[in-house]
């Protein structure tokens, strides 16, 4: 039986009077691995921020785990890895452990002192992404790929059921990217974590995710990658000049 974790009904958003998203309807079930793709300025990040409650729709409803977002308070069930999460790190003296420990905070806690339970959760999260041996290092000393793993661990530390990632592989070399997607697949498969991934990298996304949603202000197409990406659909979406380069994986 499927269990709907995210539901958007007739969602419209605008910024400064300009519509960004129009009539978005989307259901995301437990265990889905959804890739959201679309051209620049198509509203991918806006969609993600609307699901996270960082932006309010002008009309329509957003529900998380069956609750209207305005009544939703179980935010520890939702992990978020923002775009360019590591861009503010120059001269920010924070260790891997300290970063992941932030993932343990939530609105229901008043005291933030680390308990043994917190320490176990932080260790487990670091183990899951293979960064435990680096726990004492400064985040700023790590490579882009390693930093992304730490941000995943930070999101995992609250034991989320749903993880949203915004362009997580920007600035990460291709070898680390491959490992990164391997990790996401493992989390999706082994921990039954629902994943929503925003990316401009259609080719990679098409190979990794189980469901794909193409947006350009509204949802242009939604379904299994092989159905969505067939025929001349991509041309319609991105224009005639698009060239698809498909690698074997």
């Amino acid at each position, binding site marked *: 039986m499927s269990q709907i974790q995210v539901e958007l009904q007739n969602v419209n958003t605008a910024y400064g009077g300009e519509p960004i998203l129009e009539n978005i309807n989307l259901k995301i079930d437990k265990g889905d691995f959804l890739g959201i793709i679309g051209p620049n300025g198509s509203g991918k990040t806006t969609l993600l921020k609307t699901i996270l409650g960082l932006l309010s729709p002008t009309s329509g409803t957003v529900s998380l785990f069956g609750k209207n977002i305005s009544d939703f308070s179980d935010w520890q069930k939702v992990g978020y890895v923002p775009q360019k999460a590591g861009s503010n790190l120059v001269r920010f*003296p924070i260790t891997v452990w300290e970063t992941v420990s932030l993932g343990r*905070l939530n*609105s229901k806690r008043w005291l933030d002192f680390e308990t043994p339970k917190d320490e176990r959760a932080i260790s487990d999260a670091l183990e899951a992404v293979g960064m435990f041996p680096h726990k004492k290092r400064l985040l700023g000393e790590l490579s882009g790929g390693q930093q992304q793993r730490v941000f995943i661990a930070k999101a995992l530390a609250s034991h989320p059921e749903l993880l949203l990632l915004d362009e997580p592989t920007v600035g990460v070399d291709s070898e680390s990217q491959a490992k990164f997607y391997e990790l996401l697949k493992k989390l999706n498969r082994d921990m039954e974590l629902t994943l929503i991934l925003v990316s401009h990298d259609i080719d990679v996304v098409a190979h990794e995710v189980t469901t794909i949603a193409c947006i350009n202000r509204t949802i242009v197409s939604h379904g299994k990658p092989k159905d969505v990406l067939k025929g001349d659909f991509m041309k319609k979406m991105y224009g005639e000049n698009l060239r698809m380069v498909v690698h074997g994986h």
Partner: protein
Amino acid sequence: MWRAFEAGLVIALIAPLIGNFLVVRRYSLIADTLSHVALSGVAIGLILGTSPVPTTIVVTVIASLLIEWLRSQNRIPSEAVLAMFLPGGLALSIVLISLAHGFNANLFSYLFGSITTVRQDEVYLILGLGLITLAAVVLLYKKLLYSSFDEESARVSGIPVSFVNVSLIVLTAITVSLAMRVVGVLLIGALMVIPVVTAMQVAKSFIQSMYLSIVLALSEVFLGLFIAYYFNLPAGGAIVLLSLLVFSVVAGLGRK
């Protein structure tokens, strides 16, 4: 003399404590801005004939709330907000002082700090508010760190980011007001930033940077006060020059 040490101890403890969060937020200049605003508070206190510390606290807290509100509106770049309040505070204080036909003798000690004019009741106020500030930072430590590190993720986690930001800026305003008696309004920004930046050259974690900057600030304030006392120099000037010297040495050694 001993009162100045008591007050200096409290300031050296809380100034870098707050300063760590300001520096990583690239908001170091807020302390300098508020210290110029604080001058208006001093002027009001002197006009009213009361101790300037309470009036300064009221004025800087109001200004800090206005600054945070303007910043959160996102219509003006945050450094421009600071660049408006800094001369604004100075302008108000100059006008007030001129209206009161000047009160020269006392003002110099508020500008650059004085070790001989700190009164006992002011020491109690510094001690009390200093302890409250310390407790607030300890209780809000992780929330402050998260909001400084990644405001958006902190919001998603349900952290009351706006409350945390307002708390930080109000604590900054209180610290600036308290510190003015020891290092003077013009030099407090330095005490909130220089020991922190020095500590960050060598710190291996954020908490280590917190501890190290406190140790540095405590040592620098004590040594600076001694030097000021024995060579009859302005306390603020001695402390800031000493902390810059320590920074140069640490940064120089770190490059090897």
